[in-house]
C-alpha cells in the first residue's frame, strides 16, 4: 500500500513539476481571489485585516477545489478503467492522490497567508502565532485534500463531475473553514480567547476525513 501511495504521489508531483499547472494557474487564481476581495471590501486596510482570516481560508478552499479538479484531470486519459487496470492498491491510490494535493495545497496556503501579510497588512501577534498559522495551514490542507480526493473518486467518470465536486465539497469544507479561520484570526490578533478547541476540531476533521477516504476509496473504485 505504501509503495503504491509513494508511486502515485511521485507520479502526480512529477507531472506537476513538468506541466506546472498548479503553480502557474491555481496559485495565481488564489492570488487573484485575494486581490478581488480587496476590491470588494475597499482599500481600507483595517477592514481588510479584520476580514483577512476568513478571506485567506476562502481563497485556500477555492484553490483546493481547483487543485482537486486538476488532480482528477491528470487521471482523465486513463479514466476509472485505466486506474483499475494499473492494479494499484486503492488505499494507496487514495493516499498518494490526497498527499499530492495536500503538498500542493500546503504550498499554496503558505503563499496565500504571505499574500495576506503583504496585501492586507496582516501581522502575526508573535512568533508562536506564525507557527500556529503554519500548523493550521498544514492541517487544513490535509483535511481538505483528503475529502477532495474522496469526492473526486466518487464523481470520477460521471458527466456532472465539474459541478458535483464543488456541491459535495463545500459543505464538508465548511467546518474546516470555521476552525481554520478562528485559529488564524486569533494568531493574526483579530480575536482573543483560546483556540485550542478549534485546533481539536481541525485535528478531528483531518483524522475523520482521512479515515473515510482510506476505507471508502476501494468500494468507490470497484464496479460490480
Amino acid at each position: 500500500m505504501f509503495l503504491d501511495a509513494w508511486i502515485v504521489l511521485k507520479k502526480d508531483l512529477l507531472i506537476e513539476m513538468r506541466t506546472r499547472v498548479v503553480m502557474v494557474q491555481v496559485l495565481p487564481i488564489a492570488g487573484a481571489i485575494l486581490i478581488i476581495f480587496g476590491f470588494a471590501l475597499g482599500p481600507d486596510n483595517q477592514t481588510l485585516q479584520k476580514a483577512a482570516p476568513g478571506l485567506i481560508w476562502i481563497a485556500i478552499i477555492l484553490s483546493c477545489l481547483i487543485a482537486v479538479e486538476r488532480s482528477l484531470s491528470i487521471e482523465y486519459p486513463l479514466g476509472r478503467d485505466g486506474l483499475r487496470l494499473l492494479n494499484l492498491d486503492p488505499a494507496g491510490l487514495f493516499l498518494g492522490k490526497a498527499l499530492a494535493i495536500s503538498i500542493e495545497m500546503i504550498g499554496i496556503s503558505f503563499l496565500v497567508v504571505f499574500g495576506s501579510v503583504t496585501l492586507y497588512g496582516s501581522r502575526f501577534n508573535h512568533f508562536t502565532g506564525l507557527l500556529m498559522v503554519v500548523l493550521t495551514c498544514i492541517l487544513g490542507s490535509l483535511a481538505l485534500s483528503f475529502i477532495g480526493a474522496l469526492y473526486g473518486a466518487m464523481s470520477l467518470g460521471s458527466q456532472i463531475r465539474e459541478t458535483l465536486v464543488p456541491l459535495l465539497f463545500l459543505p464538508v469544507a465548511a467546518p474546516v473553514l470555521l476552525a481554520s479561520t478562528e485559529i488564524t484570526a486569533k494568531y493574526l490578533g483579530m480575536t482573543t480567547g483560546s483556540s485550542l478547541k478549534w485546533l481539536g476540531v481541525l485535528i478531528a476533521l483531518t483524522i475523520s476525513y482521512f479515515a473515510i477516504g482510506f476505507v471508502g476509496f476501494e468500494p468507490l473504485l470497484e464496479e460490480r
Partner: protein
Amino acid sequence: MPYTISLKNVVSVVGGFPLLAGINFEASFGEIVLISGPNGAGKTSLLRLIAGLIPMTQGSGYVNGLNLQENSQEIRTLVSYVGHRPNMYDDLTALENVIISVGNSHSLSLKVKLSRVKTSKLKEEIIAAFALMGLPDRVSSTKFSRLSEGQKRRVNFIPLLIKDTKIWLLDEPHASIDALSREIIDSSILRAQERGALILIASHELEHVQAIATRTLNIQGGYITSGDQDVS
C-alpha cells in the same frame, strides 16, 4: 483440463444497455482467439468483461477458476488488457509509465518482488523489453505524448512482457500503426503463446490476425454467432 476462461449465458448491462446479451465462450491456455464482428457488436465489451472492468449482470463466468463477479480484483492481476487508448500518462516518459504499471504492489507477486529487490534489476529488464519491442534507448526517456502511434502501442505492450501475464486481452492491437510495429507486436504475441499464454484479440483486420490465430469467433449483437466450440 478445465477451461482458462469459461463464460455461460453472460449478460452485462451498463447504463440500462445490454452490452453483452448471453455470451457462451470457453478458451484454454495456448490459444490465440480472434474475436471478429461489426462495430458495436460487443467485441470490446467481451474483453472488458473478462478484464473485470464491466459487471456481469447475469450468467456465470470464471477466469482461471476465479469467479468474475466476486474476484474481479484478483482477476485483474492475472490478465492484461490493452485497449484502443494507451493506458499511460502523456506527461511522463515511456520508462516512467512502464515503472508505474509494473512497479506497484499488485503487479508483482511476492516471489518476483523478493527476487527483484534491487529495482535496478527491474530496470534492466525493462530496458531489455524496450529493445525487444524494437524501441531504441532514447524512446524510454521520451515523453509519452511525443511518441508515434506505433511506438505508443509497443510501449503499452512492455508491462505485459515484464509481468509475464498469462492472459492477454488485446483490443484492436493493429489499428492505425505502421508495418514494423505490427510485425513486432505479432511476434510478441506468438512468443507469449509459446510460453503458454491465452491471447484474445478483438480485431477488424481478419486476414492479418487469422494468420496467427488458432481460431476465430464472430460476435454480433452482444452474442456469439459462430466459431465457438459449443454453443449450448
